[in-house]
């Protein structure tokens, strides 16, 4: 996988705290053996219930960055939620805070979740509501997020940031390298050998 140092594009502001993964991807769309087509069901029930939902607003079609509030992606561990967003076109998320499992799942998929303080998120969301054409540039290496004349400091966990910049964000090959150390660790665990 190539390294990712920045993500640029138009951005979609999505207000609300605790947008859980059941809302991002309702459970009935998990009834499948692949992730194909999940992009069609992102926030489906919220969108049906609210014609003004930002994901219903064609102005934001093609957005690469999603701007959210607190504890985004809480609830179920379903990777179907970040998979759906990614397949819809989202490449990075900026928010006040994220659930840990969601943030980890997204990182593995190559979709960094930046955190920023409340005031910065508010400023970003307000700007994007007023000027949806604004191009946002999120730097993975420095965390700096630029939107027009607005500059915001975003944060990524250091491990995730370095993994992205040095193209190590797909972990399976990393976990399989030096595999003897895994067997060695296993052999020290009493239960692995049956005590």
């Amino acid at each position, binding site marked *: 996988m190539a390294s990712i140092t920045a993500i640029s594009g138009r951005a979609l502001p999505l207000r609300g705290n605790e947008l859980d993964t059941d809302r991002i991807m309702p459970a*009935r769309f998990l009834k*499948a*053996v692949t992730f194909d087509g999940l992009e069609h069901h992102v926030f489906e029930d919220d969108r049906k219930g609210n014609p003004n939902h930002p994901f219903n607003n064609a102005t934001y079609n093609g957005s690469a960055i999603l701007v959210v509030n607190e504890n985004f992606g809480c609830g179920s561990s379903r*990777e179907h939620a970040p*998979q759906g967003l990614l397949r819809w076109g989202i490449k990075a998320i900026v928010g006040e805070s994220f659930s840990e499992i969601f943030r*980890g799942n997204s990182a593995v998929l190559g979709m960094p979740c930046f955190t920023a303080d409340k005031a910065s998120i508010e400023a970003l969301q307000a700007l994007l509501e007023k000027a949806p054409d604004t191009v946002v540039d999120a730097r993975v290496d420095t965390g700096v997020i630029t939107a027009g004349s607005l500059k915001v400091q975003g944060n990524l966990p250091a491990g995730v940031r370095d993994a992205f910049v040095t193209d190590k964000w797909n972990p399976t090959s990393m*976990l399989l390298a030096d595999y003897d150390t895994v067997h060695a660790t296993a052999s020290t665990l009493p*239960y692995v050998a049956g005590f």
Partner: protein
Amino acid sequence: MPTLFEKVWNAHAVRTLPSGQTQLFVGLHLVHEVTSPQAFDMIRQHGWGVPYPQRTFATVDHIVPTSSQKRPFLDVIAEEMTTALERNCQQYGIQLFAPGDDLAGNQGIVHVIGPEMGLTQPGMTIACGDSHTSTHGALGAIAFGIGTSQVRDVLASQSLAMDPLKVRRIDVNGTLKPGVYAKDVILTIIRRLGVNGGVGYAYEYGGTTIDNMSIDERMTVCNMSVEGGARAGYVNPDEKTFAYLKGRQYAPQGDAWDRAVAWWTSLASDADATYDDHVVIDAATIEPTVTWGINPAQSVGVSEAIATKDEEALTYMGFADGQKVAGTRIDVAFIGSCTNGRLSDLAEAAKFVQGRHVASHVKALVVPGSQEISRKAEAMGLDKIFTAAGFEWRGAGCSMCLAMNPDKLVGNQISASSSNRNFKGRQGSPTGRTLLMSPVMVAAAAIAGEVTDVREMLEEVHA
């Protein structure tokens, strides 16, 4: 002075990865049909093997119908998902506890069957593509939910790239009042600390209330750690843990048992362990608790009024600020799930239900967490008590906890539920409404036809 978390983490740390994360060996990997098929496809595509197939166990729980487990399932997608898991397990040599019409096996909710068979043991690292994996921490394991790409990683390498968690000690002290259960304890903790209060933490539960809890009750508490944002929750192993495990199918036997107990004992947090945070809760202040909103922190004691400015939650639920939840007419009552679908939950609810009857407008379901629980409950006659009272007695599975099978709310029905999530649309209808509470409170609501303070009805019994 390390905590159990640190001891277990260090014992399983393989090496520091170039990304700076820790490569952590996974002692037990549990798999279900919803979050695994893509992971198996990925390892197949890359030509990776499964180096430790004997450390992975699988079951089918989310999509199984609970009226009959007869194959093929009527729902063709449910059947396809089950067949895919059977094929994957067969190809890689993984033990599958499959559904079966005779209900004679060990199929059940993944977080119920792990402890039940003694697969879950103290000191293990446990991962599963399911956020409620935190449940297994009740036996002193470090257990956490993972996404499908990580399921792939565990299958391919029996390890994960992880960052360590901080540890918050939560002491609950004192005696719970009659009518107050483990569910009320964890709902209170989440209300107190918030739905994201636990982000970055593992919760270590202790104190006299937790010490006095059965393992089943500790599982209820640990189960919902993730609802408070904590990826893992655990209780230090003690005599209750060992008594629970002794004689279970996958528990160590003979001399190995004694060696296991010695190792497990050594893993408990040291008396002078240091924690990143410490919270103390007085059990006497906990009431039977009910959620009124759309996340599990939005709850009140049943005698309390809602006090909020969250218009979105109030509008969705049809409540008003200042209103009590008690007295809310319910349409559905659901007893089950990995939070409260164990034998002791059913037995406690049955004790309450005996000699009473479900209100005529309520559809009431009891769904055991596993086939083993069904069999034991039936041997105790619990099924008869429930059906005589007007409950439907179903087969094992997740059922109406998330409604990926035919058990769903319709329209904006209100459900009194012993499960763990009251998110919008969680129980299968995009406008359906969920009130979380203990299984005995669900039974009380089913009988009264509305949310009711179980303590008043308990007095009736004892009077």
